[in-house]
């Protein structure tokens, strides 16, 4: 049993430790509408005037005072600490309220949290990034990382699928990536329309067309669960070892740090054990009708 001085010392340490449930204030430095329902905010810490350090795949709990708090993946460049960038879709109460915010408005941030993408695993291998819809946002930091360390890996391939041409996220950046000689970018939409001359078809159909050495590939997937399941199956069919596939999962989160259990999926908490998981660990959890 601890004596009184020990308890006092412990209390002092705890008092100095930052409260993981207490948001820090951030100011919107830049607000960008990406598509008709997606937008990006670049945030600065009110105290430091800078962003935060994070690893690709991690997320922040974003708090709109008086509205609510939600997890949003960080979608900026992990090497740029001047701002912290989040891209999201206006789909719920918090994100719809966020969409009406402007430069200079403040919001709360806790994080970064979560298990990142294992980007170091790609060293000496081909890298295939498979993104669906808004799932490109959590994968953009992986792409930035890979481009910053381009000489450490072999082929670099981005396969991106989305609903229609007007839903294409980061369009200008995709065009500039496509113009590079060291990155293969394939985009496909589920529904084409007049004036669209690119691919039409589910993103999984791009896997057979893309140039990569399947046996020496590490793949990162993010998007709707059914899309990740189908694409993982196609990648494995092509010869990518299943332990070289990584998926990012999403569930409703409350605390973001493994206290509350809101994001429990089978035996794991998405916030604490994920959101990034090796595919073999998620394979059986992606198939059941309800979990």
């Amino acid at each position, binding site marked *: 049993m601890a004596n009184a001085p020990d308890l006092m010392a412990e209390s002092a340490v705890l008092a100095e430790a930052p409260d993981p449930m207490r948001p820090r204030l951030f100011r919107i430095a830049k607000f960008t509408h990406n598509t008709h329902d997606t937008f990006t905010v670049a945030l600065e810490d009110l105290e430091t005037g800078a962003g935060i350090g994070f690893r690709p795949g991690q997320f922040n709990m974003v708090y709109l005072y008086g509205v609510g708090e939600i997890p949003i993946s960080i979608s900026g460049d992990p090497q740029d600490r001047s701002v912290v960038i989040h891209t999201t879709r206006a789909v719920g109460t918090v994100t719809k309220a966020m969409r009406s915010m402007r430069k200079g408005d403040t919001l709360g941030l806790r994080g970064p949290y979560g298990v990142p993408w294992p980007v170091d695993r790609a060293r000496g291998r081909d890298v295939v990034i498979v993104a*669906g*819809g808004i799932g490109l946002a959590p994968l953009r930091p992986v792409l930035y990382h890979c481009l910053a360390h381009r000489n450490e890996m072999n082929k670099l391939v981005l396969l991106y699928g989305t609903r229609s041409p007007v839903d294409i996220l980061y369009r200008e950046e995709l065009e500039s990536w496509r113009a590079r000689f060291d990155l293969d970018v394939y985009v496909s939409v589920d529904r*084409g329309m007049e004036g669209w001359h690119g691919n*039409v*078809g589910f993103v999984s*159909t791009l896997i057979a067309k893309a140039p990569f050495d399947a046996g020496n590939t590490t793949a990162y997937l993010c*998007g709707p669960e*059914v899309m990740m399941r189908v694409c993982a199956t196609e990648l494995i069919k092509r010869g990518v070892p299943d332990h070289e596939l990584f998926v990012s999962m999403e569930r409703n989160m409350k605390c973001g740090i493994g206290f509350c259990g809101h994001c429990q999926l089978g035996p794991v908490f998405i916030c604490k054990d994920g959101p990034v998981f090796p595919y073999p660990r998620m394979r059986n959890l992606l198939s059941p009708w309800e979990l």
Partner: protein
Amino acid sequence: MDDLTRILKGLPFFEGFADEHLALLVGCARNERATAGSFLFREGQDATTFYLIREGSVSLNIHAPGQGPLIVQTVSENEPLGWSWLFPPYTWHFDARVEQDARMVVFDGLCLRTKCDKDPVFGYELIKRFSRIMTQRIEALSFQLMDVYGERS
């Protein structure tokens, strides 16, 4: 080995085809080019051919009144296009519009059907390949119909 045989041998769709079967195919095939914006076929026209795209891309379009054309699929390098030539009433169900200048091998459907009837082993090989493509495309289309990138994603 003539040029067309060499081309067909190099196409993944015909991988594993016996030489005598390739010869049957060559007898019904010709090379063609099509420029972007042109149509290979239109909905309701007789389906007398199928295409293997060697270069470029072709979109399959469907029209709904008042909505203009909706592209449901694109077919590109090394992929086959069209199977309506195989089944009565042998009419196309979509418009096929060339999106990027295309080079392709075009097969005469009637010629192929006649050879399939005469040589069931050849016919079975061809049908197996088309069945696999049909399955893949129906699967992909079903995911497109699910609209998986909708609000829940």
